[in-house]
């Protein structure tokens, strides 16, 4: 089995005086098709970990490999292409463009991957179907509920069929019921083949997922796979 994401002794230190270590030697790998929760209290280094895994930030030391490629060897352009093609992001705040329609928002997930417009819109419609929003394609995000907006954001992350989807507290801005339906969607998408890594501070949510990596003070304290 190939590892889509591999971290090897990754550290991240911020600042000079005094230096603050956000990550202190994190190592794990994620295989294709896995559904992983990274769980930890706030300030544990989860967000930094997400940024480093998503190549939005370079580690201070250690190696991050996306689909077997060492991210440290890539320049800004190549790294941007990794983000455009290999990684999908889902954020707590959704980050949808309010002036554009749902379809345009999702299609923009492919904008920087170099796909022509017709293909982008076709695949956006497919992705919206997968998250159950086919009937909302021409709506503006402001007309949608929070849960629907997060589904749009998930569709945008999936539209390029990335190697891995990184979701940062995807249910953080949603109420319990809506959050549960998003969790349900995430599980369905995983069953359908997507590799998803979800970051959360909520141990209960993490417990629903097959694998949990626990982070405290920038270190992995446990990495458990549910045997069920």
């Amino acid at each position, binding site marked *: 089995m190939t590892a889509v994401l591999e971290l090897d002794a990754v550290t991240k230190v911020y600042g000079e005086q005094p230096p603050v270590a956000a990550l202190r030697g994190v190592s794990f790998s994620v295989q294709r098709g896995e559904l992983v929760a990274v769980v930890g209290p706030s300030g544990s280094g989860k967000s930094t970990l997400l940024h480093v895994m*998503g190549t939005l930030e370079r580690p201070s030391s250690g190696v991050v490999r996306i689909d077997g490629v060492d991210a440290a060897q890539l320049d800004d352009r190549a790294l941007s*292409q990794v983000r455009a093609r290999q990684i999908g992001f889902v954020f707590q705040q959704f980050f949808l463009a309010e*002036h554009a329609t749902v379809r345009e928002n999702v299609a923009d997930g492919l904008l920087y991957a170099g796909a022509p417009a017709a293909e982008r819109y076709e695949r956006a419609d497919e992705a919206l179907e997968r998250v159950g929003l086919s009937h909302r394609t021409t709506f503006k995000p402001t007309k949608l509920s929070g849960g629907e907006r997060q589904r749009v954001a998930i569709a945008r992350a999936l539209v390029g069929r990335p190697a891995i989807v990184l979701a940062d507290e995807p249910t953080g801005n949603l109420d319990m019921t809506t959050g549960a339906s998003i969790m349900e969607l995430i599980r369905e998408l995983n069953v359908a083949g997507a590799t998803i890594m979800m970051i959360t501070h909520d141990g209960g949510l993490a417990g629903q997922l097959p694998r949990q990596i626990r982070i405290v003070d920038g270190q992995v304290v446990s990495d458990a796979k549910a045997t069920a």
Partner: protein
Amino acid sequence: MSVIAGRLSPRDGLRVASVGLRVRPLRAALSALGIAIGTAAIVAILGLSASSQAGLLAEIDRLGTNMLTVEAGQSLTGQETQLPLDAPGRITLLGDVQVLAHTGLMKNEKVYRNSMIPAAESGGMQVRASSLNLLAVLSTGIARGAWLNAGTVHEPVAVLGAVAAERLGIDRVYPDQRIWLGGRWFNVAGILQPSPLAADIDTSALVGYPAAQKYLGYVSIARGEQRAGPPSTIYVRVATGHEAAVQALLAPTANPEAPDQVNVSQPSDVLTARAAAAGAFDSLFLGLGIVALIVGAVGVANIMIISVLERRSENGLRRALGATKQQIRTQFLTESILLAVLGGIVGVVVGVIATAIYAGTKHWVIVIPVEAWSGGIASAIVIGAFAGLMPAIRASRLPPTVALRTV
């Protein structure tokens, strides 16, 4: 993994760059206003000077450049001289001379509205005797009333130049309208249109030579015979293309005994010089236009900085979606240029409209120099690039994690 740089198509690039404009059109319009005003001012100044020049050149075309003027000059000792009585007749005999007219200035005669006006208030107007064909030679016409004819040249009848009529307070002609000319009443037959080729005519009251002789005592003795005259100015139309050759012959022909006492000139030269001067634009307004452009550039830079700050999360999202630093830079730079070019286009349109309206009221041809509108658009592009550069670089340098942290 194949790394093929995901380059945006021009269409996608424009769509992405115009997000700020589409989302906040009022702000975009206001920030482009300065550039629009500056460009409009510059285009209007250049357009108006070119149009007024074209208007003057058209006027010169209409009047013809083939007229030469022969005038009595001064002697070596500085005394005023006269042209010989038979100068017009001699000039007529020259080859390439098509037609000529002449006037005789009566320096001692003045013209007044009526007999009650003090003698000193002569208003800078002159009294001239005129040959009958003067109007045809000067390419001018009658504004009101009638020109002199074979009958009225013998009578106390005057025709007023455009400026003279205005100074005398006469704006229409009716029977028995009179002016006080040379110590007696003269009837006013008509008022002339302005004659740009002979400004002296504009300030003159014109009478026939026989009337000048009969009522004003304007006579010379030639070969023992009394004749009205002498002429003081001779207007000569020559065959086009032979002006220089005829000009050289005019002085010796007019006064063979003292050719140096004759002044020969080409009045259209003055108009041509005025046209050249009109083509030189008003540097004060041009300067104001440039100031407005600079203020506009500051406005655009200001808006771009705010835009970059406000759109941090969009910026971060684009980086997460795979935009390179270069693409973020290009996006904001293009937005800034778009903003400035929109202002520039509006400015050019307004400038052209302003020129068209003004030129229309003056009956000029509308001329917008190519460099005016192309320069306007080009300077807008440069201003946009200049104003957007710093904000664009800032946006591209912002780490995506910082950009995404803002809610």
